């Protein structure tokens, strides 16, 4: 799994922002993680603690905002919820779906001081 690398990416962004926005400690981190992003939340929480130890985010709390998966069905032209990339359309059973949401992996905001 790549949760460790993702957490390293988050740390890099926080360090860059710390310089730009003049803060030295991060207390809370809010991430938006889509259902289809392939991220294991437990692994993410574990890796985050390990990666941020002795950094500006040591002890910071990681909050994960879940974004549900959505797709547009080419067959019936509707926006439908999906939980996996290979889900069939719940309306018509087609697999011709275009994912429209739920693959996000974004850092939304930080509480800093």
């Amino acid at each position, binding site marked *: 799994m790549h949760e460790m690398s*993702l957490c390293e*990416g988050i740390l890099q962004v926080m360090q860059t922002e710390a310089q730009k926005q003049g803060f030295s400690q991060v207390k809370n981190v809010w991430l938006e993680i889509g259902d289809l992003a392939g991220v294991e939340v437990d692994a993410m929480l574990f890796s985050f603690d390990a990666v941020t130890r002795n*950094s500006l985010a040591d002890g910071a709390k990681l909050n994960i905002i879940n974004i549900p998966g959505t797709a547009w069905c080419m067959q019936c032209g509707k926006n439908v919820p999906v939980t996996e990339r*290979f889900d069939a359309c719940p309306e018509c059973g087609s*697999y011709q779906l275009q994912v429209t949401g739920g693959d996000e992996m*974004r850092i939304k905001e930080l509480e800093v001081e």
Partner: protein
Amino acid sequence: MHEHDHDHKHDHSHDHGHSHAHDHGHADDHTHNHDHHHYGQGPARAHAPGMSQSRMVQIEQDILGKNNEYAQHNRSRFIQQGILTLNLVSSPGSGKTTLLTRTLNDLKSEFPLAVIEGDQETSNDAERIRETGAPAIQINTGKGCHLDAHQVGHAVDHLDPAERSVLFIENVGNLVCPAAFDLGEAHKVAILSITEGEDKPIKYPDMFHAADLLLLNKIDLLPHLDFNVEQCIEYARRVNPGIQVLQLSATTGEGMDNWYQWIQLARQSRLIGFESKPAISAVKESA
């Protein structure tokens, strides 16, 4: 600068066999991180003990934003030099190295080839690849589960592939993590051998979704196995309706021509409108 003891675990392993002075070129990542208390820098300038000056900072950035920037840089470079880059992804044991070695041998007289070798199991494999005569560089990923665009950028600097060449990146044998990391390639090519399960495309949907081409390898073993080719292709199309599938055997050579034709067409497409800049040596000669 005394930035030595900071505890970043950057996962870009540089091939330090080379004597390049590497300063971890992320301009602003490393300073100030160990100053845990910047007294006097806070906006409120109120430092009475127990008084918090916490505030919210909007970030709104993709977690992989940094990787994507490096990938974009790699991609521009490949386009400028007319290089077709293929990112080969698979599980361990799919026969990726055999496929690559055979491809290199069969295509080396057609156009320039180069290889970035990222698979961690493969000091032997790198040897096999070098024996083909193609310029190759190995990225030591250590325990890393994927290549990232920063590592690849460095490898490309060292390897310096020829203009109009085809560059193969052999990614770490893993169908999960490499899906998320854009390296700047033109196409991801997934290799699946029929000794694996036919349901791999729906077990690892992200990878098969990200790939443009699926090579179904080891089809010479079909008579001995209970593998449903049609079912496998159907699963692959569920996660990626546009994926192209070629069946081949890198051992017997069956179906390899289709793969070579695919590479040739992808390369031609990359070279549409491409004009090479005059080589430095040619300029010198005419001067």
